[in-house]
């Protein structure tokens, strides 16, 4: 059974479609999969990948930098101030951000914002390598 899936960022609605399964990673709870009719749920997300299985069977992957997932019987909404579709990632851009974050960390190891930036860049790099690898198989 399909339900409505929406990715909402502060500036726009990034994605809206029908899906049969959403997999996300919540803070403290590990990976959690939502199917139709899941009981109402609100979770705080880690910087991680969110996968949506569309009604047609396609799997859409998104990278989110924290945020929330809100599930009601008929709808899954992902709220994130930074989210990007894995298919539109740009390796050069991510590498540049990673370098900047690492430089900031080298200057000040306690810089929380730089640490978050690095985690965000690491995630996207891992997804980039992962999706390339799966394409090769």
């Amino acid at each position, binding site marked *: 059974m399909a339900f409505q899936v929406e990715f909402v960022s502060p500036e726009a609605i990034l994605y809206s479609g029908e899906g049969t399964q959403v997999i996300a990673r919540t803070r403290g709870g590990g990976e959690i999969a939502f199917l139709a009719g899941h009981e109402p749920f609100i979770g*705080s997300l880690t910087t991680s990948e969110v996968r949506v299985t569309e009604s047609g069977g396609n799997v859409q992957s998104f990278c989110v930098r924290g945020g929330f997932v809100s599930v009601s019987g008929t709808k899954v909404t992902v709220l994130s101030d930074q989210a990007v579709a894995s298919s539109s990632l740009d390796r050069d851009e991510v590498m540049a951000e990673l370098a900047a974050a690492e430089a900031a960390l080298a200057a000040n190891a306690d810089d929380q914002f730089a640490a978050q930036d690095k985690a965000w860049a690491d995630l996207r790099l891992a997804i980039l390598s992962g999706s390339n690898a799966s394409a090769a198989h």
Partner: protein
Amino acid sequence: MPGGAERTLRRRIGSVSNTKKITRAMELIAATRVARAQQRARAARPYSEQLTGVIENLAAGGASVDHPLLRQVENAQKVAFVVCAGDRGLAGPFNAAVIRSAEREIQALRNDGGDYVLITVGKKVADYFRFRGFEISESFAGFTDNPSYEDARAVARKVRDLFDSGDVDQVELVYTEFVSIGTQRPVVRRFLPLEDTSTMADAGGGDAEALASYDFEPSPEGVLEDLLPRYVEARLFAALLDSAASEHANRQRAMKAATDNAEELIIKLAREMNRARQASITTEIMEIVAGAESLGDDKGGSGLIELQLAETESV
């Protein structure tokens, strides 16, 4: 000299019509930007609505947390003001109205013995307060006509640093609320501490009771802790977007008024110029008539010259 006046007027008409062209162009640009700014404000709404929705559910679930952002202080002595207006002028009363409200608030606070911390958004605001000798803690500029979420986050981070560290007890946000295309008004809103969650949920106007049975992960308190900073950013972002739309609407109105005034001025000046030209022609004729008459007196009244004069005048 009469010919000189005509020339001066012609030059002024030229410069006024150039000004009119510029103000007309600015009016049209502002008109398209208002539309775009409104569009962006609309696009930003789902996110803040959803956030408020989560808060509603949390409030209904009975989550309460002792979060720094909710720390209420009786009788705040140290208040931060975030004053948002524009980088550029030529927008009617837009900048002045916000600055006036902010200054009034600051004076009132000082009269009560409080102290202020000033954060300015927009070049015009910073210029004014610096000129008047106010102490500015931090000023942001360069994005007021098209703010991004990143800009809002930068301002929010600064505000939260001040508040979290206990440097200020309260934060007020002064900006222009975009009511409609015809109405924008400067407002002073309490920004921090946030009202407690049930008040926020009520303000959101949602029907929380029907949705009360949510599961929370890691816990209601944990979700709220992640959520509040984002709520602060989203509220600031909404204010910046409102302010940007208001700036463009004000500029459009101001430039329309300027274009209309220029048009009126051109008509008035053209009329004056025609009068000056006519006056100079009349004066010349009078001079010739006077000359002819004095000649005629000498020669004993021949009608010949007068006849020629009459012909020139009718041409």
